[in-house]
């Protein structure tokens, strides 16, 4: 089979499918490539929300699709009560007040500022996006003290932002763990404020498919078909990058297609395809971190210690865990007290993940990759962390599947190819992927 496309979107996740369908609906000829055919389950029980503009663009109301927002964000500390926050600022302030956290009265102000920072469109476009006027954008930023202060704040350490509003150490730890866990960042590293403010974007609040409802991936695959996205499956065997406006991509033994752009909606998709990840975006120092998911099948249901089974949980002892684990990852070491995020799937499994493990290990003065032993050690840390919060957890584990995703640093087919676009790790992955592919379309017109 052969074909000629504007975009080849590669990736087995919701953001990739949304981007492909959205591009096709906007009139771009689009192909989607699934690399891993065996993988039928998403790596998590929840996905980033589908924003309204994507919902409308894909006409999702015509599909049998039900999504419900995650109920809460819960942090299970070593001692003391958990901290719980909700999608709605008012609900959160009320809950914080109830648990005796004095900072409840500034919660809305805090959300307002973070939303303002994240929504400041021209900051983002100045610093992230190419375009013929970007020099002007940089000049404008440098000559406008207000813009400069906001930019410095947005790309500074998230601890500065949190300290400006909050005094409660547990609340600060809760926010940091949930907002920075995605990238395995520390609240004291430059750029973590960007990850923090993105976390509070409306489109970042995660959603889940209720039990017995059609799986979101399945719906999106149909939506892609309906939008006219051509679907391919298999491994890439060759990329012909002859410097022309089109790249040739060979898939498996038979398919040869040509495309203007290769598009990765997430760095995970890029890593799975063997493409190099984009370089370190602020707060998302993803070249230093591996991301690990462990899916635990249990003999019996275990009730969550707080919130309900539709919530997203973080395990940390205190804020130092976030810092120490990130520093250990940078040094190429596993950390026993790494923050662990977990959630319940509709059928009662527990899916746990952390991005606080190193991309590679530094031992005896040299770097080495992950081994089977490291996977076991990492999975054991995650298991122990959950067991420390859920009594009986260890005895109920029937099976555990571990998946390690390390950033690709090897040479790849994609080397030297400037028509490959990789979205970095985003809380609002779906919204961001669709916006990015729209932008590329606008730019190439």
């Amino acid at each position: 089979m052969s074909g000629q496309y504007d975009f080849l979107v590669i990736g087995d996740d919701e953001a990739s499918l949304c981007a492909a369908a959205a591009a096709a609906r906007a009139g771009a000829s689009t192909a989607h490539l699934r690399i891993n055919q065996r993988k039928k389950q998403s790596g998590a029980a929840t996905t980033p929300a589908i924003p309204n503009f994507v919902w409308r663009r894909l006409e999702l109301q015509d599909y049998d699709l039900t999504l419900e927002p995650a109920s809460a964000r819960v942090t299970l500390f070593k001692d003391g009560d958990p901290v719980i926050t909700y999608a709605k600022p008012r609900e959160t302030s009320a809950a914080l007040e109830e648990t005796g956290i004095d900072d409840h009265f500034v919660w809305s102000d805090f959300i307002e500022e973070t939303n303002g920072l994240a929504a400041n469109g021209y900051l983002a476009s100045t610093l992230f996006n190419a375009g013929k006027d970007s020099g002007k954008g940089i000049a404008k930023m440098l000559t406008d003290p207000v813009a400069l202060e906001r930019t410095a704040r947005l790309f500074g350490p998230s601890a500065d932002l949190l300290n400006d509003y909050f005094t409660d150490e547990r609340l600060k730890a809760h926010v940091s763990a949930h907002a920075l866990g995605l990238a395995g960042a520390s609240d004291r590293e430059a750029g973590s404020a960007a990850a923090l403010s993105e976390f509070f974007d409306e489109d970042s609040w995660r959603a889940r498919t209720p039990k017995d409802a059609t799986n979101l991936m399945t719906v999106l695959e149909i939506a892609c078909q309906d939008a006219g996205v051509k679907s391919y499956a298999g491994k890439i065997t060759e990329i012909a990058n002859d410097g022309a406006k089109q790249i040739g991509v060979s898939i498996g033994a038979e398919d040869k297609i040509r495309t203007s752009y290769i598009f990765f909606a997430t760095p995970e998709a890029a890593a799975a395809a063997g493409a190099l990840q984009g370089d370190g975006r602020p707060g998302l120092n993803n070249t230093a971190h591996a991301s690990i998911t462990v899916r635990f099948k249990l003999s019996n249901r275990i009730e969550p210690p707080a919130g309900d089974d539709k919530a997203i949980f973080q395990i940390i002892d205190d804020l130092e865990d976030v810092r120490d684990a990130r520093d250990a990852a940078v040094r190429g070491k596993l950390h026993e007290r790494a923050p662990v995020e977990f959630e319940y799937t509709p059928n009662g499994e527990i899916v746990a993940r952390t991005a606080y493990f190193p991309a590679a290990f530094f031992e005896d003065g040299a770097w080495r990759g992950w081994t089977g032993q490291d996977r076991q050690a990492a999975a054991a840390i995650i298991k122990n962390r959950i067991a420390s919060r859920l009594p009986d957890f260890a005895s109920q584990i029937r099976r555990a599947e571990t998946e390690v995703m390390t950033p690709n640093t090897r040479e790849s087919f994609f080397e030297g190819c400037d028509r490959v676009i990789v979205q970095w790790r985003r809380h609002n992955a779906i919204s961001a992927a669709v916006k990015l592919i729209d932008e590329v379309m606008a730019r190439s017109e």
Partner: protein
Amino acid sequence: MNKPADMPEDEEGATVAGRIEGGIDAIVIGDGVDGLAAATYLGKAGLHTILVGAGKEPGGRIAVREIAPGVEGVDGEHLVGLLDPEVIAELDLYRHGLEYAARRLDTTYFFDAYDALRFDGDLSQAANIALDDDEERDALEAFMAELLELSAFLRPAFRPAVYASGDTQKMLGKTLAGASSETASLIRRYLIASAGDVLSARFADGPLKTLLYSEVAFRSASAPNESLSFMPFLRRLSGEAAGLQGAVAYPAGGAIAVVTALRRAAQGAKVDVRASAPVKSILIEGDRVAGVMLEDGGQLRAPIVVAATDASSAFLKMIGPANIDIELQRVLTTQRPEIATARLHFVLKGVAQDETTRANMKRRLFYAPPVEDVTAAFLDARAGRVPEKLIVEAVFPGALDDKLLLDRRQLMSVMAHPVPFDATPDDARREAIKNAALASIEMFATGLSERVETVDLRLPGDEAAAVGANAGAYAAKPDILRQWAIAAATAASGGINGFYFCGPEAQIGSGMSCSAARSAARAALRAYRKGHV
């Protein structure tokens, strides 16, 4: 050292208690290089200018001090790399005695795992290094050429307080707006990316990557594995020494030579320099500045006040929180420096006899620890621990400048980075820093410890105490966006008419630059001529 004979001795007491002195056009607070430069600009333009300094001698943190009996060393800085060429030209610093004992200082890099690399000239002179791998050398040449071009292009952006004066703003806007989309995308990349990512994309693991990693991290508060950490290097490369971009030079007599030349220039511009005159407060009347009140009770009244002290002294102490806007207050009070550079002097017994060592002593010696150790050092320093290995820059003043030769001893001037920032370090912390610096020096000068007679350590707290400033101002500079933001916020001067700021926070990058002084003085003069003050 180098004190001109024609310099009048400072009079006792700057003012008479309770006396109000008028008829002054401008007052400059702070007698460091920026204060001297600002005052000279104003004096040269015909303004009756008084410079009030807290110390006994002008110079601020750049000062001559007895390190050991019979051995004098220069505090603050040892090399010149950022001194604004326009300041040199406009204030005629060469005519006022500034000269270089060594221009385009050659550098020798030392490593743990590789042989030393000798650069004849600066980093862009890769052709002159002994490196087996031609490909790597070509990569370095191409990289440095690209960076030098880009940093020259960005020079207006590194001028402090870019928006304070309309014309600089326009110029900057014009320059950057004219950037091709390739240049703009490079700027964006180099602004946001970490040094580690930038270097890994260009160099394989090896001595060149190792030395660049340390050079970028040197004197910066941004850990080189974190975002925003590469840009400070472009700032450094945008500087000039002795007319050469990206180079460093050793002034005859050491960094104090810059102070001496500026003092002469100030004298030539008829600036009334008053030492030992600490300022208690800046007088504000309505929305404008009216003069200063000294600690001794005297008042100096003038329509222009330029502060060349640290921002928290100037705005929070001398002006007072009540008179500045809340945003500036927040910017100043939320600073929490974590990283600093240690300044050390080692007095060594005996004189090196062998030719190799003597030749090396005429160079800038730079120890670049392994990349992983540099990363770890930043993690340690930020957590308040003294790192095991420090990046070290060392020069031997006596080898660079005959006049500074000692008898049967040698002075080694060192900057070591990063150490934890601590406003009031205790003795144990000091000992630990000395030991870490010495251990790092031992990595390239084996056996040197045995020759050490005296170790003298200066930390930001010491420098600040000497000039009555806030120690945080002398910590390593924060990330570049934050530096720009603080410079912009302080240059706005809290909206007080007639008040201008050119303290350390107004400057982008570390080292002596005087760009901030130039900007502030020019803005003041413009307002003066237009009759706005």
